[in-house]
């Protein structure tokens, strides 16, 4: 084997994980399109590697959240019943759905993420103090959205923040700081449920997943250290554009058209 592909995978994972930290989203949503379109890697292999990256990022960036005591452990474990059950169903669906449709679903999720990033989350009007009281509302709706998030996560190999965030902001009405910490907590567990199944199925290929895992750990740690500031408006709009472009590409890939794939 040559080290070129490994270095490339490592670099991609490092970059996307840092960006993920910066933008408050998981790296998977960038990793899967980049690996399939630029690397010509099989979609299922890319999804397997991406799940590993999602777990690695979640573990590597959990420590500061835990210190803040903002993770609501009881709420997280309750919502995890929905996300892991969703992941269980998603793993099954992933084996049944034709690759073409996976590309279409991925394109739609990318568009949804772009729209969400363009709209920007509303900060809660009240300042949040440590140990502040907040009440959890509309739990059934929240659980349903979490089930969907788990399903999509297992199907596409992403953290599914795109569904978890509205579930916690809009349905459960949690303060943003609490929901980010709780979300980080859940993403790793959900991804582990599906990654285990992908592993058992042989869809996690070490030569691809190992460099991605290393890059993700390094990227997530660096991202947490360096990029603490919120992205400015221009940067945010740039990523809205990138997400839309990736979405168009994934949609084209569904129909077998790949404009940017490097020669194998």
């Amino acid at each position, binding site marked *: 084997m040559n080290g070129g592909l490994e270095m490339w995978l490592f670099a991609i994972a490092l970059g996307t994980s840092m960006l993920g930290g910066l933008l408050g989203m998981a790296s998977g949503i960038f990793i899967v399109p980049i690996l399939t379109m630029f690397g010509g890697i099989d979609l299922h292999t890319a999804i397997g590697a991406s799940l590993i990256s999602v777990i690695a990022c979640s573990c590597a960036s959990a420590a500061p959240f835990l210190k803040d005591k903002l993770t609501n452990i*009881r709420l997280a474990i309750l919502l995890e019943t929905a996300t892991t059950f969703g992941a269980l169903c998603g793993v099954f669906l992933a084996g049944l759905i034709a690759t073409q449709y996976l590309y279409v679903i991925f394109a739609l999720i990318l568009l949804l993420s772009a729209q969400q990033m363009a709209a920007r989350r509303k900060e809660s009007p009240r300042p949040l103090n440590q140990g502040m009281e907040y009440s959890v509302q509309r739990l059934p709706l929240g659980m349903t959205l979490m089930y969907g998030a788990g399903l999509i996560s297992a199907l596409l190999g992403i953290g599914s923040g795109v569904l978890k965030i509205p579930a916690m902001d809009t349905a459960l009405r949690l303060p943003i700081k609490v929901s980010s910490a709780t979300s980080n907590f859940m993403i790793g*567990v959900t991804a582990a449920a599906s990654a285990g199944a992908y592993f058992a199925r042989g869809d996690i290929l070490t030569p691809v997943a190992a460099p991605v895992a290393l890059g993700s750990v390094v990227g997530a740690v660096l991202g947490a250290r360096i990029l603490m500031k919120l992205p400015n408006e221009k940067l945010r709009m740039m990523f809205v554009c990138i997400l839309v472009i990736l979405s168009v590409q994934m949609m084209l890939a569904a129909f077998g058209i790949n404009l940017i794939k490097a020669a194998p």
Partner: protein
Amino acid sequence: MGTLLHYGTLLASAVIASGLALALGFAAPGMRVATVGLLLIILLPVVRVGVMLMFFLRAGDYKFGAVAALVLSIILLSFFLGAP
């Protein structure tokens, strides 16, 4: 819990890194070492749920202990059902 994740992530990364380095330098066994590292990464969050289960049980919170046990069993079910 934070320490568990911190050292767990470090350990898994070290195993993967050494496996990759071996694979680049020599041959076959390296990739197997890296695969073990990947398994470690997958198991980290599962261990985390296990620690939560013990935490709830020790606190006498059997209701949430049962919820944690349910999550754990869904994850394990997914592992076993994933195998063809």
